[in-house]
C-alpha cells in the first residue's frame, strides 16, 4: 500500500483500507473458528472495524452524524454481547458444548 504513497499525507482511503482489513480478519474469525466464544469476539472485531470506518468518514467530512452512529453501535454491541453470552452460558450449562458445529438443536 505504501508504494502508491510517496508523499506523507493520510487520506480517507488509508482508514477505509485498515477498516476493511480488520473487518475481513473478523469475518475470517467467524468463518474459520469453531469455538463459540471466539466467534463472538470476532463479531466484536467486525463491529469495531465498522466503527473505525464511520469515525474516519466523520473526520474527513467534518460532520458529527457518524460519531453518533458509532455511539449507538457501541450500545447495540453491548446488548448483543449480553444476550450472546447468556445464550452461550445456557447452552454450556445444559449440554457442555462450546463448538458451534455441535450446537444444532434447532436443525431437527
Amino acid at each position, binding site marked *: *500500500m505504501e508504494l502508491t504513497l510517496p508523499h506523507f499525507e493520510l487520506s480517507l482511503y488509508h482508514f477505509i483500507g485498515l477498516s476493511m482489513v480488520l473487518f475481513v480478519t473478523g469475518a475470517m474469525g467467524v468463518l474459520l473458528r469453531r469455538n463459540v466464544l471466539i466467534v463472538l469476539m470476532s463479531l466484536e472485531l467486525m463491529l469495531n472495524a465498522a466503527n473505525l470506518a464511520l469515525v474516519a468518514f466523520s*473526520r474527513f467530512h467534518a460532520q458529527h452524524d457518524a460519531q453518533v452512529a458509532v455511539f449507538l453501535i457501541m450500545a447495540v454491541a453491548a446488548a448483543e454481547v449480553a444476550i450472546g453470552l*447468556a445464550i452461550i452460558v445456557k447452552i454450556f450449562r445444559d449440554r457442555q458444548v462450546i463448538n458451534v458445529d455441535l450446537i444444532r438443536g434447532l436443525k431437527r
Partner: protein
Amino acid sequence: MSGMGITIAFWVMAAAAVGLSIAAISVRHPLKSAYFLVGVFFVTAALFLLLEARLLAVLQVLVYAGAIMVFIIFVIMLINLRPDQLGGRRMTLGKVIGLILGIGVVASASVVGYQAISARPIPKGFGQVEAVSTMLYTHFAFAFEAVSLLLLVAIIGAIVLAGKKGQEKKD
C-alpha cells in the same frame, strides 16, 4: 491530516491493529484471544484520537475494552474449559492461506480504488462531548431512546436466559 509524525503514527497503529487482530482469531485459548482483542480495542481508541474523536476514544476504552471485554472474560472463567474441551486443531494450513488471501484481496481492493481524499478543516471542539451530545439529543433523540429500550430488553433477556430460574426448571 498531514505531517510525517501523524502518518508514521497511523502506520504503526495500523500494523499493531492488524497484527493483534490476526493473533486474536488464531490463538487456541479464548482467554488469550480476549487479551489480544483488548489490545485491538486500545489501538482503535488511539486511532479515534488521531481522527479527533475524543469522546468516542474514551467510550471505546470504557465500553469496549472495559465493560464488554470484562464481561467476556468473566464468561470464559465461568465456563472454565478443560484443555480437551477446547477441541479442534489449531489453524490448519488451508485456513492460514484462506486468511492471507482474504485479507490480500481486500487490501488490494482498497489500493486499486485509491483517491487522495484529504480531510476537511474541522471546527473547534470537534468530536468532543458538547458537539456529539448536542447531535445525539436533537437529531438522534429517537434513536437514543430506542437504544435505551434495546438495552433494557438485553438486560431482561440475559436474566431470563442465564438466570437462576432456568436452572431450577432444569432440575
